[in-house]
């Protein structure tokens, strides 16, 4: 108990001194993770769509060549950025750019560098997720869209991508939570995130374990909040599980259509037929 009391006191000490830096770090972490995930998703969607443009033997050779080239480029991008640690990618881009251009080109701020690195990294993961999401949509959906004369782009934007987006929402959530935690490696280029606050705080106070406890609680709070929000968004996207029956008069008002009671619908006939059949069935049973 004594140790726990000690920990509580140490945390209180840290918090009174560095609370604004901790909160600021959390804010930076969240902003970086959010922007990085959003841009990453955008990159992923672009790659996923480009990757799934269909081509056949009958297409023009140039079109086929371009499409194949695009697939190869995306493949290389995905393999390189998925296969190397983000911490190294950050160093590589942040220091490599001025190195190769003799300082002509460099990131003006660590924010820009961090956002670029996180976005590109997330995009590499999302490209594959989006491709999977598009493939997982029933091919019948594409045929249905094509059969009413939609082009590839129209089919994608109206029918396939909305369904693919819903399918990969869990992966987007995963990526966001991973980004909340993994942006901690951005201290390497001096980005002032939540973990950087820890390094600064312990450098001055030597309270390693109490500060780590604060960090643990902080990260867990952020990720729990994120997963809660994502679940809520998924539910929202699914829409209501029931639907309202449109009433005839409401229809007349909203759609400007008018039902002709004397004309009836093709169903009336069927209902009559079925009623007769039901009757026959019933009497048949009684006979037996």
């Amino acid at each position, binding site marked *: 108990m004594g140790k726990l009391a000690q920990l509580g006191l140490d945390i209180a000490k840290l918090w009174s001194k560095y609370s604004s830096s901790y909160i600021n770090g959390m804010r930076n972490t969240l902003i970086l993770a959010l922007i990085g995930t959003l841009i990453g998703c955008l990159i992923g969607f672009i790659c996923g769509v480009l990757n799934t443009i269909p081509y056949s033997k009958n297409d023009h050779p140039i079109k086929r060549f371009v499409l194949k080239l695009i697939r190869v480029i995306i493949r290389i991008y995905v393999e390189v950025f998925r296969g190397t640690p983000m911490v190294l990618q950050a160093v590589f881009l942040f220091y490599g750019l001025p190195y190769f251009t003799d300082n002509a080109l460099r990131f003006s701020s660590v924010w820009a560098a961090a956002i670029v690195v996180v976005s590109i990294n997330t995009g590499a993961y999302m490209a594959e997720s989006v491709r999977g999401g598009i493939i997982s949509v029933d091919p019948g959906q594409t045929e249905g*869209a094509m059969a009413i004369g939609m082009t590839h782009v129209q089919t994608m934007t109206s029918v396939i991508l909305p369904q693919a987006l819903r399918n990969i929402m869990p992966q987007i959530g995963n990526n966001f939570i991973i980004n909340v935690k993994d942006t901690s490696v951005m201290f390497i280029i001096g980005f002032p995130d939540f973990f950087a606050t820890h390094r600064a705080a312990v450098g001055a106070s030597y309270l390693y374990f109490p500060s780590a406890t604060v960090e643990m609680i902080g990260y867990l709070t952020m990720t729990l909040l994120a997963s809660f929000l994502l679940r809520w968004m998924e539910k929202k996207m699914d829409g209501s599980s029931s639907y309202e029956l449109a009433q005839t008069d409401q229809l007349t008002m909203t759609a400007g259509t008018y039902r002709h009671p004397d004309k009836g619908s093709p169903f009336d006939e069927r209902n009559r037929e079925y009623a007769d059949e039901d009757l026959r069935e019933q009497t048949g049973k009684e006979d037996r």
Partner: protein
Amino acid sequence: MADQILQINHLSKFFGNNEVLRDIDFSVCVGDVISIIGASGSGKSTLLRCINLLETPTSGEILYHGRNVLERGTNPAEYRSHVGMVFQSFNLFNNMTVLENCVVGQVRVLKRGKEEARKHAMEYLERVGMAPYIHAKPRQISGGQKQRVAIARAMAMDPEVLLFDEPTSALDPEMVGEVLNVMQALAESGMTMLVVTHEMAFARDVSNQVVYMSDGVICEQGKPEEIFGNPRKQETIDFLSRFRG
């Protein structure tokens, strides 16, 4: 022959080395209701999918108002908007409500205004008896209801000819009637239809022409009373006798 919509000449289709369609010839005129019957695997569905360019035929031509749509330079999407298709597995858009399913093609392909498209869709949804369900998503309605919506969706595009690919084969027996009734009503309203079906009663009573296919070729073709009452080929007799049981 001014009222001829489609003419198919010497159409054949290979899947690899497997010839599924051989030298198919026939034509579709305005107001025709043609039933294509035959055993499973005889190439009926492939023929229909070729006509809608969902499959590319290996050789032959498909003339749409005299113009070959298999030539380079034809826009398949534009052509398909005149030739509607109803699938065995419905293929309604799962991310949209019943009404949106019938509106989206009109707005995006035919560039109609939202309100006009909505009114037009409602007309057909009323005709197939699905007007009360316009706010439902496809997963919330039955197979028969889905197929009726699919018919309304195809009709809302004002196609010149409507292709049906075994529209009742995926349905529970008690739902077949409602779909066939809608199709019969459509046929009686003068719609040009090409129907691949196993419903012999529909082929006999509703269509004005029956095509019997066997092993990728058109085996026999004629008026329903000829095919059903007085078939000439032995294959046709054998096939039909299985249905009469």
